C-alpha cells in the first residue's frame, strides 16, 4: 500500500504533462524545425528525465513514500549517470582530438 494518497486528478494532470512533453520532444527533434544540435540534445534529455521523474514520483508513488525508500531508489543512479557522461564524452573526445 502506498504511504500517502494520490488523487485521480493528479494522475490525469501527470498524463497531460507526459502527453504535452512528448509532443514538444517530437517538435524539437524534427530537423525542419531547425533547432541547433547542442540545445536540442540538452532539451531532449531534460524532457526525457522530467517525464521519467513524473512517472516515478506520481505513478510509482515515490513522492509519497518514506524517505528511506526514496533514497534507496534514487541514490544509486547518481554515480553511474556521472560516469556515463564521462565515458561517452571521452569516446567523443578521442574522435576529435
Amino acid at each position, binding site marked *: 500500500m502506498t504511504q500517502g494518497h494520490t488523487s485521480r486528478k493528479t494522475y490525469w494532470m501527470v498524463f497531460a504533462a507526459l502527453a504535452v512533453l512528448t509532443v514538444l520532444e517530437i517538435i524539437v527533434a524534427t530537423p525542419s524545425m531547425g533547432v541547433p544540435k547542442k540545445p536540442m540534445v540538452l532539451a531532449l534529455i531534460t524532457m*526525457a528525465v522530467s517525464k521519467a521523474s513524473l512517472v516515478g514520483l506520481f*505513478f510509482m508513488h515515490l513522492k509519497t513514500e518514506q524517505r528511506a525508500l526514496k533514497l534507496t531508489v534514487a541514490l544509486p543512479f547518481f554515480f553511474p549517470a556521472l560516469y556515463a557522461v564521462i565515458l561517452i564524452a571521452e*569516446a567523443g573526445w578521442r*574522435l576529435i582530438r
Partner: protein
Amino acid sequence: MSAIATATLEPSSHPVAHPLPRDEYFGDATPGKIGMWIFLLSDAFSFGGLLLAYGILRGGSEVWHHPGEPTLGIPFTAFLTFLLICSSVTMVLAVAAANEGNRKQTILFLALTALGGIGFLTGQFHEYFGLTPGHGLVHEGLIFGRSAYASTFYVTTSFHGAHVLTGTIYILVTLARTAAGKTNANDIEILGLFWHFVDLIWILVFTFIYLL
C-alpha cells in the same frame, strides 16, 4: 500494513491478514514491494548498461548512420510511446480501484492495460518485420550485426520488448487471479510498479535511440 493493503478484493471469501508492525524506515511498505523495487533497480542498471554501450559506440563512431540503412520511424514510435503512457494511466487507475476494494474496476483497468501492452508489442513487431509484406526495418535494410547502429537498436528495443511481453503476461495472470478473488491491493500495486517501470524505461529509450 494497513487493513486495506491486506484485504483481498473479495473480502467475503478471504480473511484479512494480520497486519505487520510498521517499520521504522520503510513504513508500511511490504517485503514484496521492497523486493520489486530492488529488482527494478537492478533491471534499471541492465538498461543503463545497454544505453551506456550505445552512447560510447555512437559517441566514438565517425559514421553512425551508414548509407542504405533506414531511418527510424518517429511518428509511429511516438504513437507507441503515447500508447504506453496511456497504459500507465489505466494501470494507476487499477491500483487506485484495488486500494478502494473495487474488484470490477480493477479487472477493467487491468484488461485495458494488457490491451495497451499487446498493442505495443504488435506495433514493435510491425516496426521490425512489418505486418504486411514489404514493410519493416529488417526488410528496409536495418540488419542486426551489420552496423553498431542496427545492433544497438535491436538489442536495446528488444530487451525492452521482452519486458513489455513479461509485463503483459504478468498483468493477464494477475487479472485472472483477481477475477478468482486471489489478489489483494498490494499485489496490484507491485504489478503496477513493474508496468510503470517498463513505461519509464521506454521514455528514455525513445529519446536516446529514436530522437537524438
